[in-house]
């Protein structure tokens, strides 16, 4: 037992969490006693005796779990082993439940954890649609309904879409650029372990008096500053998810900039790497804004500051400015990595170089720059200074240009190629082009102030964001998961089940989200538990679509689990792709490469006689000859 307490791990982690929470609790009570205040404060928003342990408990867990062991030892001068690889790699499934510094283990930890939250968020969506299937309130009351859609969105955004991309890139990106790991493996592990803590806080808020947070994922003040205790769980959960995402972005930036294999110039990086470079630039600069604004709300709630309390001189609209200054770039944080995935999948399965590679990379950078100047298009009716609307409208519409470039370039990539559609990944990639185009079109409409004035805060918005985030981001996530499943697990998934999942998802997406445009324009506001009976039939159809969409995800789950366990063994390069991660075994060796590969050309040189992307160590022996005859050293 004493040994278990000394070793980093779950027992010490649990102990750390309990001690941390107890310390936070005692601290609050002691300070309040010393100040002559009653020990507990159970005013609607305050609860410092709960809020402070919610910070110190998770930190205590991380400390106990071993996230800080190496750094603390180094800081106090205890002996450390700089090349300590004892926490690297997974020999059994148990190693996936440990503090592990291997980017491949962390990638799988990320993807599995985030999909766990995807299914939780999905269940919440099913409850929402069950309630909305008919006018009137049947299943949940209006207050619970507000909690349901708030937690649904918060979980899907902060615990699924944003981190699942970090997980996929974690696995794939170091392999792609020929690096043995991420630049900061321990920081990488810490980033991952902050994520389930955020999830526990979001879900745990259902246990708080007054119910889970219910001011929407946007948490607009002053609704959020006056909301029951559950809102503080949201404020703090965002801190953990945000810190995780910022640390990962820093890690990606340093890894991409400093750890590329010899010969991997910027113009030879696969577009997935470009996409994660762009995303990371957004995360490091924008995410601190949401962290800050959620702290301001927490301070307003617990410390009686007046950031957003109009009665105390605060400014209500400024919450939205700070919030959207993060949350609009966040839309691209949730989309750009997906763009990268689509480029990889389409180029590989069309057997064609990416059309206009450099413009594709520049379009990503263009989106990064523009995305910082469009946030107020969420606020056209919010009562901000009215002159600000026109410049924000122009930048918003202009951001359609780089996005359009990407769509047309993917289409251009297909031409004169040899398109293979046997892979579910390719099906999702092709369908993504269509569904995302619809999301883009409704986005342009929403960017136009007069149209936005009418449809803002209606179901048209719900339709738009689901076409962009589900038909867009989630389709790219599925494409990515199917594409790299053989690499990550060493097994092939079942394409037949993949097709069932694909067609079901495509059908469900359209039936669910297309009619939402119509009822929104016709007068149905969003975020309502009850609605006028004229929208009853459409809502019933939408709910049916949503249930199909939900049910068909179980096929995906089954396919992934069973294939991971029993699927046929995958070869190193089942899709005959060029990028480096496919030139190693599936799954890759524990330190990725015996010898760092040498990059000698672009990543998409399909059909170019003699062209090579990278030369692997001892290659002439190991790698099966690619379709076109190539000889080592003949590359340009």
């Amino acid at each position, binding site marked *: 037992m004493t040994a278990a307490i000394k070793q980093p791990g779950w027992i010490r982690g649990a102990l750390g969490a309990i001690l941390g929470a107890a310390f936070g609790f005692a601290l609050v009570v002691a300070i309040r006693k010393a100040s002559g205040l009653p020990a507990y404060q159970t005013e609607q928003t305050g609860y410092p005796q709960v809020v402070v342990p919610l910070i110190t408990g998770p930190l205590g867990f991380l400390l106990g779990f071993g996230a800080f062991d190496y750094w603390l030892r180094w800081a106090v001068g205890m002996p450390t082993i700089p090349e300590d690889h004892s926490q690297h790699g997974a020999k059994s499934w148990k190693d996936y439940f440990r503090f592990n510094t291997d980017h491949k283990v962390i990638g799988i930890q990320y993807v599995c954890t985030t999909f766990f939250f995807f299914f939780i968020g999905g269940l919440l969506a099913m409850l929402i649609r069950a309630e909305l299937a008919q006018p009137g309130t049947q299943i949940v009351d*209006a207050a619970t309904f507000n909690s349901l859609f708030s937690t649904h969105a918060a979980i899907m955004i902060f615990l699924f879409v944003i981190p699942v991309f970090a997980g996929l890139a974690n696995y794939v990106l170091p392999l792609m650029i020929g690096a043995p790991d991420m630049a900061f493996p321990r920081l990488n592990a810490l980033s991952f372990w902050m994520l389930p803590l955020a999830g526990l806080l979001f879900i745990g808020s259902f246990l708080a008096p007054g119910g889970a947070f*219910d001011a929407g994922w946007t948490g*607009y003040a002053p*609704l959020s500053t*006056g909301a029951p205790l559950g809102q503080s769980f949201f404020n703090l959960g965002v801190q953990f998810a945000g810190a995780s995402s910022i640390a990962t972005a820093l890690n990606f930036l340093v890894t991409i900039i400093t750890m590329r294999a010899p010969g991997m110039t910027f113009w030879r990086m696969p577009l997935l790497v470009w996409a994660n470079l762009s995303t990371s630039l957004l995360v490091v600069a924008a995410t601190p804004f949401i962290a800050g604004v959620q702290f301001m709300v927490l301070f307003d709630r617990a410390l009686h500051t007046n950031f957003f309390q*109009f*009665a105390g001189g605060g400014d*209500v*609209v400024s919450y939205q400015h700070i919030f959207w200054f993060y949350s609009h770039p966040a839309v691209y944080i949730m989309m750009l990595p997906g763009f990268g995935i689509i480029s990889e999948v389409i180029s590989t399965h069309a*057997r*064609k*170089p990416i*059309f*206009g*590679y*450099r413009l594709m990379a520049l379009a990503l950078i263009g989106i990064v720059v523009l995305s910082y100047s469009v946030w107020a298009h969420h606020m056209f*009716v919010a*009562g901000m*200074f*009215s*002159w*600000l609307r*026109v410049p924000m*409208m122009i930048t918003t*519409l*202009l951001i359609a*240009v780089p996005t*359009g*470039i990407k769509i*047309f*370039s993917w*289409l*251009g990539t*297909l*031409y*004169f*190629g040899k*398109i293979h559609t046997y892979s579910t990944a390719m099906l999702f990639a092709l369908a993504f*082009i*269509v569904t995302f*185009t619809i999301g883009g*079109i409704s986005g*342009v*409409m929403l960017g136009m*102030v*007069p*149209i936005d*004035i*009418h449809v*803002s*805060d209606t179901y048209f918005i719900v339709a738009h964001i689901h076409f962009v985030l589900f038909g867009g981001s989630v389709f790219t996530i599925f494409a990515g998961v199917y594409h790299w499943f053989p690499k990550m697990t060493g097994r092939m998934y079942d394409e037949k089940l993949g097709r069932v999942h694909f067609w079901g998802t495509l059908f469900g997406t359209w039936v669910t989200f297309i009619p939402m445009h*119509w009822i929104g324009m016709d*007068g149905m*506001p969003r975020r*309502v538990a*009850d609605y006028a009976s004229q929208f009853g039939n459409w809502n019933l159809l939408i709910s049916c679509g949503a249930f199909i969409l939900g049910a068909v995800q179980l096929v995906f789950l089954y396919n992934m689990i069973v294939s991971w366990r029993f699927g046929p063994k995958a070869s190193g390069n089942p899709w005959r792709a060029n990028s480096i991660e496919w030139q190693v075994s599936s799954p890759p060796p524990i330190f990725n490469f015996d010898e760092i590969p040498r990059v000698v050309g672009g990543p998409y*040189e399909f*059909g*170019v006689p003699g062209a090579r992307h990278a030369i692997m160590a001892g290659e002439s022996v190991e790698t099966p000859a690619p*379709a076109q005859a190539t000889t080592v050293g003949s590359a340009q």
Partner: protein
Amino acid sequence: MIGRLPIAKMLAVVVVMTAAMSAVMLSINWDGQEASTAAPKIDQLLDVMIVLSSFVFSLVIVMLFYALWKFKAKPGDESDGEPIHGNTKLEIAWTVIPTIIVLFGAGYSWSVLHDIEKPDKHHLTVDVFSQQYAWSFGYPGKDNVYSQGELHVPVDEQIQFKMHAQDVIHSFWVPEWRIKKDNVPGITTTAIVTPDKLGTYELICTELCGFGHASMRAKVVVETPAKFEEWVGGLKEKVPAPLAESITQDTESNPAPLNAGGA
């Protein structure tokens, strides 16, 4: 490269598809009844966007399905496609043409916005008070009479709504007018509407404001000036003191749109 594609035929299909989609979609009245002078202008902008969007969507669909039909690999074909890396002229075209289209859209939207928010010297001011979960209205030009849950306005006269929220943010939306504006605690926001159809409508709260959000509605009656005067004359209550106070406390940081500093 492009010369090898049946560009004329593909464009013809795009045009036919655009025309068909537009014809179907324009025949549907998406936004519902039009009951203000702003409504037809906004709906016309939407119609123009529907045609442009149909074109973009058709272009993507035709490009995608032609490629899938023409360049699908035969079973067992393991060869690669042609090593085409791009086409500078084409890339410039699909950067410049969309830029022109969206800038046209921006200019058109701006002019519509300017049009629908143009303040009229002759107008009726109505104070809108919102609180969880009820609407009430004051008529400052009519001796400050006060109405709860029911808004009456005369037809064919510009109304300037001055909005005041008492607790959290609410949003004022009458779908038939196409006009929406948030009511923000601490500031006065303004919306301009000229109702041009008699009738009874519903005022809907569109900003999440708590558990009663879905039921925060009010009745809106657009009537002839004579009937309106009669109704106003019948109101006995004055705007209560706390609400009147909120008007003077609010900072007017959102003056009549676009005439104060910008365009």
